[in-house]
């Protein structure tokens, strides 16, 4: 697909927002710090949202319980990192990464496994019935949240960053946290892998086609159901990864974090358009930036600002910035 086929207008929204707030910032270094923070938060949100948007787009399944995988991933990470104290306490970066990497992988594995069960027992019986899907997946999330409280306790648990990942580096005048840079890198990596799979592999082709016209894909001989289960599991695993990163970003985890992040995720995929990975990225970056900018300029309206952003975009494109054809 040549470059001129890609709709460039939504891509410009991100730098547009960043530049629009520049005059209000006071100093360029503040702006830089906040922008990096916003991009980092946005990347983490993207990791979580990317799976959900494909689940929505591919099978028209409304999963209101995606938050449970976020919380699960985060809590699993607390256990894993907690048991590797000597590795996280070390000053050396490679040692820290040796601790963080398994935490991420275990979190993804657990979240993916729970996702498999979630799809089989909660989602599958209600295919095609949107209202029941909403109700049941919400019920599933509540059950999940409570089970987390049973296993890890109802109070918040600290999730401190490993030593070498703490602190920041200075880009000129601006302080930029190391962890946030790492988040941006990880997020970009996840995006790159997704785009590669979706555009260069046959399974990616199947997913993209399935999002547009499920029936036709079946008529071509593919059991799209199996593809869907796979997407659901991968989406859950990614949510788990996002949960780990979110927990490290906030440096603590609470059982309700799933429900809290859920709202942001919904805003992101509505802005992006259901079924669009690129749209999810743009939505996530916008939401991340907006949250950090308003957090600094006008903290009381932080959540409302994201809703206002969503409404504004819906008035421009009622199906999201990259609506997927045929729906």
């Amino acid at each position, binding site marked *: *697909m*040549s470059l001129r*086929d890609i709709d460039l207008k939504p891509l410009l929204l991100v730098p547009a927002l960043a530049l629009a707030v520049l005059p209000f910032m006071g100093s360029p270094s503040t702006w830089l710090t906040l922008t990096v923070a916003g991009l980092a938060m946005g990347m983490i949100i993207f990791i979580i949202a990317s799976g959900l948007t494909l689940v929505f787009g591919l099978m028209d399944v409304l999963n209101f319980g995606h938050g449970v995988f976020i919380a699960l991933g985060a809590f699993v990470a607390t256990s894993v990192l907690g048991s590797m104290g000597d590795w996280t306490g070390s000053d050396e970066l490679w040692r820290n990464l040796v601790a963080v990497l398994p935490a991420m992988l275990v979190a993804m594995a657990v979240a993916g496994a729970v996702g498999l069960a979630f799809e089989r027992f909660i989602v599958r019986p209600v*295919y*095609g*019935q949107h209202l029941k899907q909403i109700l049941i997946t919400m019920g599933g999330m509540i059950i999940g949240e409570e089970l987390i409280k049973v296993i890890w306790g109802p109070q918040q648990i600290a999730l401190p960053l490993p030593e070498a990942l703490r602190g920041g580096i200075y880009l000129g005048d601006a302080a930029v946290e190391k962890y946030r840079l790492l988040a941006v890198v990880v997020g970009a990596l996840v995006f790159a892998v997704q785009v590669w799979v979706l555009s260069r592999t*046959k399974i990616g*082709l*199947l997913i*993209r*086609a399935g999002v*547009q*016209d*499920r*029936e*036709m*894909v*079946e*008529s*071509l*001989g*593919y*059991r*799209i*159901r199996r593809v869907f289960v796979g997407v659901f599991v991968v989406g859950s695993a990614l949510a788990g990864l996002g949960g780990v990163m979110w927990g490290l970003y906030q440096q603590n985890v609470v059982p309700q974090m799933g429900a809290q992040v859920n709202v942001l995720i919904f805003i992101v995929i509505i802005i992006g358009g259901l079924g669009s990975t690129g749209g999810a990225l743009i939505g996530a970056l916008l939401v991340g930036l907006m949250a950090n900018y308003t957090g600094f300029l006008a903290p009381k309206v932080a959540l409302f600002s994201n809703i206002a952003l969503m409404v504004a975009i819906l008035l421009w494109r009622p199906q999201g910035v990259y609506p*997927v*054809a*045929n729906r």
Partner: protein
Amino acid sequence: MSHYHSKTGLFAPPPAPAQVASVKPARAPLPDADALLRLEGVHTHIGAYHILHGVDLVVPRGQLTMLLGRNGAGKTTTLRTIMGLWQASQGKVVFDGQDITRLHTPHIAHLNIAYVPENMGIFADLTVKENMLLAARHAKRASQMDEARLQWIFKLFPAVEKFWNHPAGKLSGGQKQMLAVSRAIVEPRDLLIIDEPSKGLAPVMINNMIDAFQQLKASGVTILLVEQNIHFAKRLGDQVAVMDNGQVVHAGSMQALADDEALQQSLLGLAL
């Protein structure tokens, strides 16, 4: 997977269709082995609506069978029922001796049946190449598609080659139609089920389409074609079945129908 919930409520389904008048179905007798596809007494309901009222259809091997009829006669429903997109509530669909009535669509497609729906089913955001690759089940990458076969398709439908790397959504209606048929033949299939391939095509493109089908027929492929364009039908069809009100009201050879103007008038309201 389509889910059709029975909609009770304030709106009752439309009254049952009137029984078909006088024409007796004249079926040319065929030995079983020659019938690649056979429908026996197929009824299909969509929600509360009873669309097919006992369809009997025989599609002989290696020949092109035309399915004709007015709008709303049930032609598309018949095709969709064969493909398993809608479940027959009664009756049997037998393909090559195997009962496929209760099978799921992907399974039916795997039996080497290709389906081109009325809306063409083109994936607009994918390129022409990707559309074709998806239809080529045995190819994991574009390079694995049968080169000779592709060249044959390019000769039949030049537009497919011309727009190979462009999003399929950018093609004109007629070009999409050609892409849809190309997809169905990118790999060898035993049965092609096609819904109105000439719709919206310019006359010169219709000739290309006819050419393609004749070449396919020559290579031994069985084709079931729904058409409204009578001239198209006359040039291509070996067998013909006419549907009205959810039933097949006439079946026989195309030649016999073409020769009998009175029959044409009563069935289709016009002369071939």
